């Protein structure tokens, strides 16, 4: 039997904007869920995805990818690999899996919303594949992560983390809820697909995959690559949506959605990928710095893409350049010193050689963030481990949920943006987080950071109560991944000698 070529039936097969008989169009596509932005359905029907795939081919491709990935996993038993790997890589794996598995799985619901409510039949078709992709990404990553559970309880957090009120998870969940899970289908199509996937997934999957291959973790590298090929396909949903919006006089709306989503995701990737690339990847296996990746993948490629579409670079582009140089270095200090509030084993990664690398990649690092590390190092050297943990808690941004930070050391610069609203003072780490809040205060004003919850009595008093609130038993509180021995390289006596 002869088969038609896909190009001969594809357009016909995706024409699914049928005329409803039993309900009205408005009931079928309720505005709060669908949001056509006042653009006629005929315009939405012009959506044309750059990657076209049939269900038959999709299943075949996905199966082949799974077979390849699982074969690598089976061939390279990772039990010994994990036992022998460095605390650097263990911290990176723990951070990746516990932040990404559930986020991917949850994304399936955002794609399913697009599948059901978007006015473009072509988009609905692509979002169906996206839904399946995200279920796969959640499952394959949890499966791979759970391989390590017999060695390390940290990997329990690959699944558990999303159900907790841990401050880092609250931060990530708030961002994803904002751009993907509480938006109409059209807005989510722009914010999730363009602001997150097209802009940033290269960082976590291509860049990290390159680092993993260089490190020799071929199983992890293969898994990441198999995910990124999906991301590359369904990340393309956003472009045709933006094109239709611009053509029909809705550029301002599309621009704003991109600006909000891009910033919210930048903050998350800055902390997760930034710390992963510039601190947790073993020095000898680092491919590039976060800044270098950002300049190549995001500033270059994504910047050109949105301009080619007819959008402008986000208004905060100059501030973004400053943030690339600073934010994640400050967060890394905080993540290390407040390590008990994290479920993995954070590492400092500021040995003399690593500091040289940081200084080379970020000129001035030693004179700024390095000054905080100097004090921490002195305390470890003198056996004053108690002084490596600050007594006062950090101030958390009321938008991104990460620390309100500036520049440390000799170029000290205090950075804070605040708004008084209905008797409450809200703090922001950047003018962009403040701007997002000001654009829609009613949307954001009810959220309280973990620190807010400490002081308004939501979290009962006492250390144990605080950790229990965040879902952390005594065993689930982070400790230094190197048991302080990383200061050996400084030559004036190790931490153990100081004890």
């Amino acid at each position, binding site marked *: 039997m002869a088969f038609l070529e896909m190009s001969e039936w594809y357009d016909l097969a995706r024409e699914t904007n049928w005329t409803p008989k039993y309900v009205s169009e408005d009931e079928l596509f309720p505005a709060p869920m669908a949001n056509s932005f006042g653009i006629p359905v005929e315009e939405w029907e012009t959506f044309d995805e750059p990657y076209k795939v049939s269900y038959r081919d999709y299943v075949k491709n996905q199966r082949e990818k799974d077979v390849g990935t699982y074969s690598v996993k089976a061939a390279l038993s990772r039990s010994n690999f994990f036992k022998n790997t460095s605390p650097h890589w263990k911290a990176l794996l723990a951070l990746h899996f516990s932040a990404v598995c559930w986020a991917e799985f949850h994304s399936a619901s955002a794609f399913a919303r697009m599948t059901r409510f978007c006015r473009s039949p072509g988009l609905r078709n692509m979002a169906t594949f996206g839904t399946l992709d995200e279920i796969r990404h959640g499952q394959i990553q949890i499966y791979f992560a759970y391989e390590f559970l017999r060695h390390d309880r940290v990997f329990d957090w690959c699944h558990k983390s999303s159900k907790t009120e841990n401050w880092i998870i609250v931060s990530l969940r708030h961002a994803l809820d904002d751009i993907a899970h509480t938006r109409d289908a059209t807005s989510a199509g722009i914010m999730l697909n363009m602001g997150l996937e097209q802009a940033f997934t290269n960082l976590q999957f291509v860049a990290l995959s390159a680092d993993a291959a260089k490190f020799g973790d071929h199983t992890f590298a293969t898994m990441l690559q198999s995910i990124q090929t999906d991301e590359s396909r369904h990340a393309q949903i956003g472009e045709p949506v933006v094109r239709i919006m611009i053509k029909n006089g809705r550029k301002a709306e599309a621009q704003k959605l991109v600006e909000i989503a891009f910033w919210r995701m930048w903050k998350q990737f800055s902390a997760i990928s930034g710390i992963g690339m510039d601190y947790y990847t073993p020095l000898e296996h680092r491919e590039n710095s976060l800044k270098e990746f950002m300049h190549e993948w995001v500033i270059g490629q994504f910047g050109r893409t949105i301009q080619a579409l007819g959008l402008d670079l986000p208004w905060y582009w100059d501030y973004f350049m400053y943030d690339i140089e600073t934010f994640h*270095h*400050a967060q890394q*200090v*905080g993540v290390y*010193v407040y390590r008990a509030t994290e479920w993995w084993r954070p590492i400092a990664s500021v040995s003399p050689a690593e500091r040289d690398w940081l200084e080379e990649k970020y000129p001035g690092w030693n004179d700024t*963030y390095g*000054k*905080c590390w*100097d*004090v*921490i190092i002195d*305390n470890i050297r003198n056996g004053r481990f108690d*002084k*490596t*943990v*600050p*007594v*006062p*808690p*950090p*101030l958390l941004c009321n938008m991104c949920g990460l*620390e*309100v*930070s*500036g*520049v*440390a*050391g*000799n170029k*000290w610069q*205090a950075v*804070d943006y*605040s708004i*008084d609203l209905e008797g*409450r*003072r809200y*703090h922001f780490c950047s003018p962009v987080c403040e701007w997002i809040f000001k654009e829609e205060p009613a949307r954001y004003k009810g959220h309280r950071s973990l*620190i807010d919850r400490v*002081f308004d009595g939501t979290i009962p008093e006492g250390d144990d109560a605080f950790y229990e609130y965040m879902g952390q038993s005594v065993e689930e509180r982070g400790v230094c991944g190197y048991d302080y021995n990383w200061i050996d390289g400084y030559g004036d006596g190790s931490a153990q000698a100081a004890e």
Partner: protein
Amino acid sequence: MVEFPIACNLEGDYGYKVLVVDETESVADVIQKAVDQLVGVLVAPFPPGTVLKLRLHGSETPLADDMTVKQANFAQMETVEIYRAG
């Protein structure tokens, strides 16, 4: 006695910390509290003779050391900076 949190950035530190202050405390007390909790933890000891001052974030003018928290009219979660004078 009314206690409440403020956000404080001590010169040299990478970010703001939340300190609990009492409205009867003086500005000098707040400075000392920040020094006690952060110098030698995240900030290196200042050279002998260093004079530290406190200002509201965004202001160039230091508050008088003997002014109380109540007189300074700090709001809950007020943002202040502690810096080297001169």
